[in-house]
């Protein structure tokens, strides 16, 4: 069987299966096995694409090239480690009486369906299906965010649904306009939403329509990326949902939404002269970065704080892609990878830490290093990594973005440095006393899964020191595709 | 826009209508207005009574009333100025003029060139000013209150009415009612969505202007709510008769304007005798239906508080603006 088909079928089937058997004792294992299968299929697909070049699937409806296969591999990997992490985490939540068996079943099946929608969104060639998959991803995660059914989690989920619903509606309008522009060139053949067809005629698309279309698409999908000023849902959803959900929201959903913007940017760049799309993205990126950096210092809830950190990094990445060019795109892709891995590792560590101490309020979390040195170090190292300390990979990508900005857009450099500095001070100043310091917390009934944290951090560290040549080639090719 | 006084404009074109027969037909239209206006009021009252399961007053009740009032002596308040005595005649004159220039039978009558819609709004506004001033003239609290309320309504209703008129004027490229009617009635049938908006807005405005139910209630003298009735409390005898008659004429004028703008079919284009004779029954039928609908709407609606009246008229204004926008968006290009 085809790796691609396998990769889509496994999460779909296991998601359906878990709605039935999700309450059994072995269900977490099934969740892990399904995620492992998805990951292996994605890895096989990656090898295939690297060896044979881009390919189609199901006629021309799906398209895998070096750009999206990279996201596919990343998504499947983070999905796998999250499922490993969530096994003991969710059992502990169950023991604490925060979740009932039916909710656990809901969680597992929705998690798999969420992976399915993410993978469909990444691999589809049809921009309409991309929209449908993004909306479906919202729907699956709304129920995950409100899993605890507390007033706060319901409020967060409601905000998430309404804001993302509004955002995604803007994206649909953008898609309609894009289709309208494309139909004038491609005719009513039904191919006018296929990205591969669009990219061939992108120079002929009507600029007037494309300007409006790209604005709507950027604002729409940008809502899901967490771009200011429509970022309000993100901290709430991250803070009030279960930690594995925070990890996949931050590590995957934001990436996929950004991927959607990148695909549209390629078209917009081809149609609109003068780098309009890039400038718009740079503006939104900078705004987001600054807003997030200044909100960081006001946070009291640990997951909220790291959610703002995600917004900050998304702003930085958007800015990088906005600058465009081989180096900035390379840096942007690298930073997306680094952020995904690091942020999910941090959320794993934070999840365990919050579970240990029974609170998410940072002032009440103290002395993690004494409760569990592994969690303590995991959180500390993860924080250092996300703050861009060398030798972690985030440093490499941030450094590239900064130098590129200095060279081509010097006016932006002080803003970038200021925002990164403020973020550094805010996060480090709060994490340090949490890791070190006095405590009196109890043992957890189920030993936490620490492995994913360190595997992620190890990869980030490795990529900071040494990027394997095939990965460099791959990034370069993807960066070239983005223009 | 075609200026009425330009070469080939309406004045030049309509010179032909200034004949003896044209004058006669114009006279007929005026007499018809004078005669039909109280009848329309009576008909609406009768319909209202039926719809509310009351026994209806006779159809000719308004005539009896006018007759009775004309026979009675006038009682003037102390301190009433000449304005107070002059106002009923001015109001009546304004309304009669309005009725005369709105094309009821034909678009080709001697007064038709003066039938500019903006002027029409001005004539109606003049009547409003006179009646409000007269109401405040005597210095009673009710009169002042009614006058102020009337001005409030007018201040909100006039812009809405103007917007409605602009929408129709945009379609026909002229502010002359005669040209508008000709454009709408005697061309190929085209659906104008903007006219739907304008029509609804016009209905709102007419209800407010004629002191009908959602804004005012013509049947009560409840001091907290009345507007029109509060203004004319001090009038008696032939003054009151003239004002009542003018009120009927106003209803008639608004009905005819609405019919002319939104249901113009049946109004004769030329001055052929047959066309004009046909126009009379058509007008009657339209008025009968319109009056019934008016009574129906009044029955199913409750009177709103006076403070909600601005909202009611604001909605009318917004609808009219929407009509204008829709006109610009949907109908200006091919």
């Amino acid at each position, binding site marked *: 069987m085809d790796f691609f088909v396998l990769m889509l079928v496994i999460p779909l089937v296991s998601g359906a299966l878990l709605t039935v058997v999700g309450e059994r004792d072995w269900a977490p294992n099934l969740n892990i096995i399904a995620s492992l299968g998805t990951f292996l299929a994605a890895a096989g697909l990656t090898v295939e694409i690297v060896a044979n070049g881009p390919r189609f699937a199901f006629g021309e409806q799906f398209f895998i090239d070096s750009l999206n296969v990279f996201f596919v591999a990343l998504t499947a990997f983070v999905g796998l480690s999250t499922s490993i992490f969530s096994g003991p985490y969710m059992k502990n939540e169950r023991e604490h009486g925060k979740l009932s068996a039916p909710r656990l079943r809901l969680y597992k099946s929705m998690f798999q369906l969420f992976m399915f929608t993410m993978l469909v969104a990444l691999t589809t060639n049809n921009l309409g299906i991309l929209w449908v998959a993004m909306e479906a991803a919202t729907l699956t995660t709304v129920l995950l965010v409100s899993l605890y059914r507390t007033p706060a989690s319901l409020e967060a989920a409601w905000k998430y649904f309404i804001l993302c619903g509004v955002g995604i509606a803007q994206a649909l309008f953008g898609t309609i306009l894009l289709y309208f522009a494309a139909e004038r060139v491609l005719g009513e053949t039904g191919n006018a939403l296929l990205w591969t067809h669009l990219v061939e005629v992108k120079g002929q698309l009507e600029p007037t329509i494309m300007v409006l279309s790209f604005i709507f698409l950027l604002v729409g999908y940008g809502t899901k990326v967490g771009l200011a000023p429509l970022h309000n849902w993100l901290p709430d959803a991250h803070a009030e949902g279960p930690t594995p959900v925070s990890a996949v929201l931050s590590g995957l959903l934001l990436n996929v939404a950004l991927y959607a913007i990148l695909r549209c940017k390629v078209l917009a760049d081809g149609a609109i002269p003068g780098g309009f799309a890039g400038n718009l993205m740079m503006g939104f990126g900078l705004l987001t970065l600054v807003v997030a950096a200044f909100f960081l210092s006001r946070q009291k809830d640990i997951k909220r704080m790291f959610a703002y950190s995600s917004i900050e990094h998304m702003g930085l990445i958007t800015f990088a892609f906005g600058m465009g060019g081989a180096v900035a795109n390379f840096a942007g892709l690298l930073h997306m990878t680094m952020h995904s891995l690091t942020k999910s590792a941090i959320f794993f560590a934070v999840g365990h830490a919050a579970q240990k101490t029974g609170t998410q309020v940072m002032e009440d979390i103290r002395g993690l290093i004494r409760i569990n040195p592994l969690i303590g170090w995991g959180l500390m190292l993860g924080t250092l990594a996300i703050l861009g300390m060398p030798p972690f990979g985030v440093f490499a990508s941030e450094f590239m973005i900064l130098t590129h900005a200095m060279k081509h857009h010097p006016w932006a450099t002080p803003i970038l440095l200021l925002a990164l500095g403020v973020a550094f001070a805010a996060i480090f100043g709060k994490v340090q006393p949490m890791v070190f310091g006095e405590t009196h917390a109890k043992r957890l009934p189920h030993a936490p899964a620490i492995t994913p944290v360190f595997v992620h951090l190890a990869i980030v560290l490795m990529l900071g020191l040494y990027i394997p040549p095939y990965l460099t080639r791959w990034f370069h090719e993807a960066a070239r595709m983005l223009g | 826009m075609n200026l009425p006084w330009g070469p080939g404009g309406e004045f030049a074109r309509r010179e032909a209508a200034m004949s003896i027969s044209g004058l006669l037909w114009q006279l007929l239209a005026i007499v018809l207005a004078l005669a039909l206006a109280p009848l329309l009021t009576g008909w609406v009252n009768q319909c209202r009574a039926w719809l509310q399961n009351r026994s209806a007053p006779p159809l000719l009740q308004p005539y009896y009333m006018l007759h009775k009032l004309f026979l009675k002596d006038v009682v003037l308040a102390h301190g009433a100025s000449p304005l107070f005595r002059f106002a009923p005649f001015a109001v009546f004159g304004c309304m009669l003029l309005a009725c005369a220039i709105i094309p009821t039978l034909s678009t080709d009558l001697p007064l038709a060139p003066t039938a500019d819609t903006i002027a029409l709004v001005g004539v109606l506004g003049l009547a409003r000013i006179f009646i409000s001033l007269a109401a405040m003239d005597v210095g009673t609290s009710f009169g002042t209150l009614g006058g102020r309320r009337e001005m409030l309504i007018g201040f909100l209703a006039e812009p809405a009415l103007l917007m409605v008129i602009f929408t129709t004027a945009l379609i026909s490229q002229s502010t002359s009612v005669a040209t508008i009617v000709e454009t709408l009635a005697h061309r190929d049938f*085209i659906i104008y969505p903007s006219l739907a908006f304008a029509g609804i807005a016009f209905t709102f405005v007419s209800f407010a202007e004629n002191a009908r139910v959602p804004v005012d209630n013509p049947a009560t003298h409840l001091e907290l709510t009345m507007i029109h009735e509060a203004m004319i409390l001090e009038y008696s005898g032939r003054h009151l008769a003239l004002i009542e008659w003018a009120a009927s004429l106003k209803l008639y004028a608004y009905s005819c304007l609405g019919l002319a703008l939104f249901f113009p079919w049946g109004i004769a284009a030329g001055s052929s005798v047959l066309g004009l004779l046909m126009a009379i029954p058509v007008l009657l039928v339209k008025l009968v239906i319109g009056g019934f609908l008016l009574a129906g709407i009044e029955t199913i609606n409750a009177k709103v508080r006076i403070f909600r009246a601005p909202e009611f008229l604001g909605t009318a204004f917004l609808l009219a603006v929407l009509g204008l926008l829709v006109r610009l968006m949907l109908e200006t290009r091919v």
Partner: protein
Amino acid sequence: MSATMPISAQLINLFASVILLLAFAMLAQRRVLTLINLFALQGLALCLATLVAAVSTGQTHLYYSAGLTLVLKVLLLPWILHRLVRKLNVKSEVEALINIPATMLVGIVLVMVAFNVALPISELSQTITRGTLGIALAVVLLAFLMMITRQKAITQVVGFLSMENGLFLAATSATYGMPMVVELGIALDVLVGVIILGVFFFQIRDQFDSLDIRHMENLKDN
């Protein structure tokens, strides 16, 4: 002048205007049940507009689209919403954050913005219905306004669905509809979304004893 416009285009323009009018009526509406009925009417107008477009252009997938709209937006969703309102005993009054005349004024401004934005684009369109693109955008923005200014969860949902109506109108007017597979996907998403929201309403009411989202303002940055 518009005299050369074919009758089908005139009809579509008429229905589009009705949709806009209904969007305004929804903005001004104070009662929840009437609001839902207005939404159903809006769906019906959308369905008729799509149907006219289908008949005049002979595109079969527009018939399906019209059918989908009829089933989903005129019958199924209003029915679900009616049931929800009755089951949840929602108070009939809709409370607005800003008073209604002010909202309407903002609405008019939004319509002007939408028309201005859409004008250059609709001039490029070759479909007979291109003028409605501005109306579609206006409906989207008005629905957005309704979601911002209303406090009941259920009104926000109606606003969301009304926004979807505007988007469908845009798709029909600019391009004679999206490819069928996309429309089906969108319809499915909307349906699933409303069902999830239905579940959600019960959870919200259990937690807050009300569907007023004023209770849901505790998550703040401080």
